[in-house]
């Protein structure tokens, strides 16, 4: 077997549905076949590669450039910013706000995606059984996504207002005390997480539901014949076969959640006093939250987030490969 196929990192995992079936590329006429496949693959990838270069090369370069120079508003307009090396990164890492922001980022991200995924999967399994109105209701679940974030964020802030919010009104009518959702340093992060979970559930529901659609019905029928109950069917069929889709959903969820700014900004502006400031919010505040745009530290924070996302990207590929091997 030529080096080419074995060294190429594979982005594929044969679904359990075809477990035991031969791999898609037939082996015999190895070298020729592989080369022509490579050319074909390149052909299929060409639009994407051109697209990536066209749309992202400059912004990516710009973000790194910004973070390595000491841009003031003046040098942003006139050019000629001083090269600062890793100075901006050092400033960010040694800032008093860094550790709390990092902690908030991890709490916000992991609680959000764990809850979004769990709720999304539960709903996807629930909606898998076609019942009256199921398609319409599933469509309705996407409605929150149609709202501009300024609207959904404001609505949540409205509902969670300490004094005239509907949530506290309900709590009080049950005899529970008022909670200062957005203005208590202990609750502000919880509040934005709740709103963010709400925003993320439709995304998880739709992707996981589509994933479920690709699991052959026969497997469930066979399992039912073997006497497996719904719980066992979920853990033995649904969950394992959904793994590739789950993996990508979680990874994308992570990437999107890491960079969330709008919801937090609209609801609490990262406050009170930094209690709900994540790295992304901090970056945004440096660049646009004050009267004086400070792009260099903002870009440095942005690049740190990028590194975090990359680390999880590695983890994803690693897990995927390990699974491929087994």
């Amino acid at each position: 077997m030529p080096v080419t196929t074995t060294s190429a990192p594979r982005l594929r995992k044969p679904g359990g549905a075809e477990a035991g079936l031969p791999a898609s590329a037939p082996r015999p006429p190895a070298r020729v076949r592989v080369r022509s496949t490579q050319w074909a693959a390149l052909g299929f990838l060409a639009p994407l590669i051109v697209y990536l270069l066209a749309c992202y090369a400059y912004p990516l370069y710009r973000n790194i450039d910004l973070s390595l120079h000491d841009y003031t508003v003046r040098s942003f307009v006139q050019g000629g910013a001083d090269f600062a090396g890793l100075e901006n990164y050092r400033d960010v890492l040694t800032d008093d706000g860094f550790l709390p922001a990092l902690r908030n980022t991890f709490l916000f991200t992991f609680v959000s995606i764990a809850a979004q995924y769990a709720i999304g999967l539960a709903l996807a399994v629930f909606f898998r059984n076609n019942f009256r109105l199921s398609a319409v209701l599933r469509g309705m679940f996407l409605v929150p996504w149609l709202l501009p974030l300024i609207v959904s964020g404001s609505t949540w802030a409205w509902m969670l207002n300490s004094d005239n919010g509907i949530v506290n009104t309900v709590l009080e009518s049950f005899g529970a005390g008022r909670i200062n959702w957005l203005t208590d340093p202990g609750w502000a992060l919880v509040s934005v997480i709740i709103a963010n979970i709400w925003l993320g559930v439709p995304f998880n529901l739709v992707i996981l539901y589509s994933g479920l659609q690709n699991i052959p019905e026969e497997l469930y029928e066979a399992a039912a014949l073997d006497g497996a109950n719904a719980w066992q069917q979920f853990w033995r069929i649904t969950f394992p076969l959904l793994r590739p889709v789950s993996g990508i959903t979680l990874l994308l969820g992570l990437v999107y959640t890491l960079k969330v700014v709008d919801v937090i900004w609209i609801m609490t502006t990262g406050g009170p006093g930094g209690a709900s400031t994540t790295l992304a919010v901090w970056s945004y505040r440096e660049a646009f939250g004050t009267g004086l745009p400070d792009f260099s530290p903002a870009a440095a924070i942005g690049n740190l987030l990028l590194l975090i996302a990359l680390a999880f990207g590695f983890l994803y590929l690693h897990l995927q490969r390990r699974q491929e091997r087994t």
Partner: protein
Amino acid sequence: MTRLPRPARTSLALGAALCTLAGAAACSSSASSGEGGDGGPAGAYTWWDPYPQHDDSSGWAQRVAKCGTEAGVTIERTAYDTTALTNQALLAAQEGTSPDIILLDNPAVSTLAETGMLTTMEEFGLDTSGIDENLLAAGVLDDQAYGIPIGANTLALYYNQQVLDEAGVDPASVTDWDSLTAALEQVTGAGHKGITFAAIGTEEGSFQFLPWFWGAGADLRDLSSADAVEALELWSGWLESGYAPNSVINNSQNTTWEEFLTGDFGFALNGTWQVNSAAEAGFPTGVLPVPAQDGGAAPAPTGGEFITAPVQDDTARYEVTKKIVECMTTPEGMVETATTFAYYIPPTADGQQQLLADSPDLRPWVDAVRVARGRTSDNLGTDYPKISEALWTAVQKALSGAADPADALAEAQAAAEDEIG
């Protein structure tokens, strides 16, 4: 999925790719290589302002258009929301495509002047000596004026006459902090809510805190002074005593006003821009100057926009630009602006006299604007945004109970010094 559109799309993307690379190179070499304007027709002058609420058919748009016609050109007006406007101005300046005129929120003037993208009024030969000095100061950097205020507004205390009557409070008795706090006690004792203000973690939070901060005699160069601590203790004391709702920590000025309109509150800190809305409220209202700690009116920060003229490659354009600026800043023009918006006080003595002749009930606001103070004055310039960020963070920490006022302000002073360097 047809094959057909694919080549078209690919060439499109390729074009963008080449241009992206070209753009990167051009960007780093020269800043002002653009063609000027957003590709509008020749003879058109571009105008940006932060009033998206006034569409093309509004009185404001017509007024802008008229100034263009008088100068012999058409004006292409684009409205941005306030934050987007500053960012867009920076971007356009970087690409050398600045508009001919930008109306800027006053604290942004010194920031943009700092970049070198604005012309001075002196270069234009415009006389700024008639403008009230306290109002012009926000646009002055190193003794040069970079714009002319087209109107000014500021903060004062609105009160709900009905609520005060029921609580037995005479608004005239509110002259200093103690009498205000006593009035709040009476109002809440009568089953109403005391006061609402905005302490949100943005510039608005600092804007609303400044009258109290300055009213205590504190200085923005020293956030941790005893005076500053007393001002913050006044606010946090109100929250602890229940005179102000906890939600003020997250309130924007707009939310504050909505709360006041419910009719539950005795007082609300808000600006000139709510004059019309107050008149239409379902209850009688009145206005008091924000009291200073020991009596008298505290200086409130000025708000309002400046008309500025960004640097152009083609300096021949300045002649017409000057005419447009003049059209907007004559005493009549100022009064017209004031009435178009229904909330701007003209920044010249002449203009103020004319405005008062037309609408005498604006008297308290004219007085308030006369004693108001620019946030970026005293040559604070681009240090102000950094100080302001430290200040609103301290206010938020103190009000939410994360730190006591003295500690929060000490921390703020350290942060501000660190930032300014």
